[in-house]
C-alpha cells in the first residue's frame, strides 16, 4: 500500500520535509505504527494526527491511498 504523509509547523521543520510517500507491504496500519515505521521510535507526546483531512487518533487505521498528517497542537486562528 502507498500512503501520503504530511508534516506541519514545528514538526515539519524538525523533520526537514513537509511531505513524503510511504510504501508498505501490508494492507493497513495504524497511524501510530506508521510513525514507528517511518521514524523508528514512538510518536512524540501531544502529537496530533489526521487521516484524509479528518482528525484521527493513533489507533486509526490507514489504508492504501490514504493521506496522513502529523502535526503539533493547533494554535487556532
Amino acid at each position, binding site marked *: 500500500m502507498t500512503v501520503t504523509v*504530511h508534516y*506541519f*509547523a*514545528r514538526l*515539519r521543520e524538525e523533520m526537514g520535509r513537509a511531505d513524503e510517500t510511504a510504501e508498505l507491504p501490508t494492507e493497513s496500519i495504524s497511524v501510530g505504527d506508521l510513525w514507528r515505521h517511518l521514524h523508528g521510535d514512538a510518536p512524540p507526546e501531544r502529537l496530533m494526527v*489526521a487521516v484524509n*483531512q*479528518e482528525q484521527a487518533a493513533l489507533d486509526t487505521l490507514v489504508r492504501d491511498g490514504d493521506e496522513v*498528517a502529523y*502535526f*503539533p*497542537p*493547533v*494554535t*487556532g*486562528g
Partner: protein
Amino acid sequence: MAVELYSEDFDPWALVARAERDIPAQARGAASVFVGRMRDFNEDDTVTGLFLEHYPGMTERELERIVAEAESRWPLLGCLVAHRVGDVRPGDALVLVATWSAHRIAARDACSDILERLKHEAPFWKRERLADGSDRWVEKNTPGF
C-alpha cells in the same frame, strides 16, 4: 455560508459589504461583525511579523464544519468567515467573522461562538518573528481578554 482564505492582505469591510448584498435588507435585522488584526506585541515582546501555517483542504473543511454547526444552532440569514494565511504584517486583518440574522441575539451569539471555536480548534499554526530577528512557534492563543 462562505469560508475564504487569503494569502494577501484583505479588506474585511469590503467583504462585509459584498456579502450583505446577497441578503435581503428587509430581513436582516441584525449583523454582527468581528475583525481581528495582527498586533505588534505578544507576551511583552515586540513582534514584527507572523507566519500563519495551515493545512490546505483540512483548514477550510474545519472552518466549514464550525460554521455549519452554528447555522444549525441559530437561525442565520448569512455567515462569512475570512482568514489570512501565510506571511502577515502587524496591522493586517487576520480574521473576519460576520453573521446576519433577523434578531440581534442570534447574530451576536453565533458570531461569538464561531470566533471562539475558530480560535481553539481550527488547524492553524503561528510562528512569530521578533524584533531581534529570532522566530518562535506560538504554543497557544492568548485568552480573549
